[in-house]
């Protein structure tokens, strides 16, 4: 079972290590972790996807809350949320298949952000399923490189997390 946690932390030196270290030493499994600054420059937001049952989720939440620099932990599964991930995918291409790739990119509402003679780089945003789907379709052309951000998420509506 996967859970998405929104974790607001002090934007200070070493906080990421503290959080990541907590997961490793307590044996919790991180699927993805994305960090960035928020509208308040003294606060960063971490979106953490963790795998485990309800007991694990409860412990992760409580242990995170124990860290002095953690301001708030919200389980985004409890409320409806919007979630996105960005992937950059560099695909082998030549004149014969470029049109086909462009077609796939259009269907997925992705974008080509770089073109070279033997490759294109595609930017795709969406949930993990969408990224997996486009990846599956592009794989036959040969994926040279790929980078993913990990999931970022916010609660839907005006409530904040």
């Amino acid at each position, binding site marked *: 079972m996967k859970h998405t946690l929104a974790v607001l*932390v002090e934007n200070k030196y070493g906080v990421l290590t503290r959080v990541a270290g907590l997961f490793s030493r307590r044996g919790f499994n991180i699927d993805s972790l994305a960090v960035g600054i928020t509208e308040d420059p003294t606060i960063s937001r971490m979106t953490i996807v963790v795998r485990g049952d309800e007991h694990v989720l409860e*412990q992760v939440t409580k*242990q995170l809350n124990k860290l*002095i620099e*953690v301001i708030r932990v919200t389980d985004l599964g409890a409320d409806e949320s919007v979630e996105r991930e960005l992937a950059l995918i560099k695909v082998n291409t030549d004149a014969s298949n470029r049109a086909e790739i462009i077609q796939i990119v259009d269907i997925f509402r992705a974008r080509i952000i770089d073109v070279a003679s033997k490759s294109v780089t595609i930017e795709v945003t969406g949930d993990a399923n969408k990224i997996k789907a486009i990846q599956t379709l592009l794989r036959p052309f040969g994926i040279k490189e790929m980078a993913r951000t990990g999931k970022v998420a916010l609660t839907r509506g005006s409530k904040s997390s």
Partner: protein
Amino acid sequence: MTGKPERMTGARAFVECLYRENVEVLFGYPGGVLLPIYDELYDAHLHHLLVRHEQAAVHAAEGYARATGKVGVCLATSGPGATNLVTGIANAYMDSIPLVAFTGQVPSSMLGNDAFQEANITGITMPITKHNYLVQDAKDLPRIIKEAFHIASTGRPGPVLIDMPKDVTTDEIDFVYPDKVELRGYKPTYKGNSQQIKRAATAIAKSKRPVIYAGGGVIGSDASKELLSFAEKIRAPVTTTLTGIGGFPNDNELYLGMPGMHGTKYANYAIQESDLLIAVGARFDDRVTGKLKSFAPNAKIIHIDIDPAEISKNITVDIPIVGDAKNILKSLLPHVSECDTKEWLDKVAIWKRDFPLYYVNRDDAIKPQYIIEQINEACPDAIIVTEVGQHQMWAAQYFKYKEPRTFITSGGLGTMGYGFPAAIGAKLGRPDKVVFDISGDGSFQMNSQEMATIVQNDIPIIIALFNNGYLGMVRQWQALFFEHRYSHTTIEDSVDFVKLAEAYGALGIRVEKPSEVRPAIEKAIEANRPVIIDFIVEREENVSPMVPAGAAINEILDLERTQ
């Protein structure tokens, strides 16, 4: 504060901050990067105790904290000085002891370059501190020290480390000590939820077979008076964990002794047959619970703890109450009345009568349990500090503690070498008390160099050394579970402890006969100076009873009967 803030170096500010925090004793060891601080300490009105190894500094600071309830403070230089603190910091973390550890660090400009005596101590201690800091600017030092003392001593107490690069101690700042701490992510809960308190009271009213299981949290929150009133009001028997010992008067009729692996049979039987277990400041450690699935199988569980993360960590709790133990017991008291426990207490009394702690005394060999009883008789108000091993369990079982903070031991981490330096801290914190370090010949040798410290500073500690020529507890396990194959646990004839005492200028007494035990203890108390009593004890005495690791706590080996 009025007027212009005073201009001073970071090192001076360090000393000023310790004044503001009313620090009386600082346990430390100098080194290159600490020279600016040590130069300030030369004129400071602070008791700095020079130890012989930094590990002793942190254990001593911890012993001081446990004996007094104040924050313990230690200081070590960068690199090896800092890494020598690691064991003691982990020990304080496991037992939730308030501690502030200061370390020197190489200058900021050299950080990360593998400079001489550099170690990333904030990185190393991240998993074993409640919080830690690398001071990056001298002007932050007062705020950080204020925060550190606050974090260490509030909520669930714990160790905080402050790493100070050398330039932080030499740079000049305008000294302002903050009045308040502002940490938006740190708001411990002290008051118990009133709904939960009512639920707990209802469960208590319904219970026929309640047991109170109290831990170190009772001592940490000074809740022992409230615990006594609570237990007597509802008429429930009380068991205290190793670190909770002293939290409930041992001579009270409701007292069951310690539960768990080397607990009393009656404590374990009572837990197993209880219909309500009231855990107060205890964390369901595996040495207490044994096999989790069979622990207190018929009991509803109330868990009072200041750390929400302890709730349902090991065992599923029916009624959690998060907050300070003292506060919660106080607010619970008016809601409870005497339970109908007569039948239950009668049953417990029969267990107590039929399965007491016992050992077979002899005239021709000294039984370690007998020594503990004799110390108890000779000096019932002593502070007992222990190392780790068999002697520790005997000290937990056979001394009758009446007050909190009179039994000081390494519970969670089980640190050999802890007791002697912790006894130094305890004695400095409570100079009015006689302090015994109950020790094994194995554990004592892990920090015996501190003999020099107590002799140099004339700190009267009595080291009651239980000399059996073995690493006794490991030997016991080898005897029971490895067919008496004593692999590397024999240390006999390795040291003449009387000569060792004398070499340091202390008093050494060897005791080889039971009849000499009491006179030696009295002589040591009388001497009021550093003493080692080398008790040559029965070599293969076992700690009994014993629940094997991983068994249910009522599956008890009765070792005396099989001998």
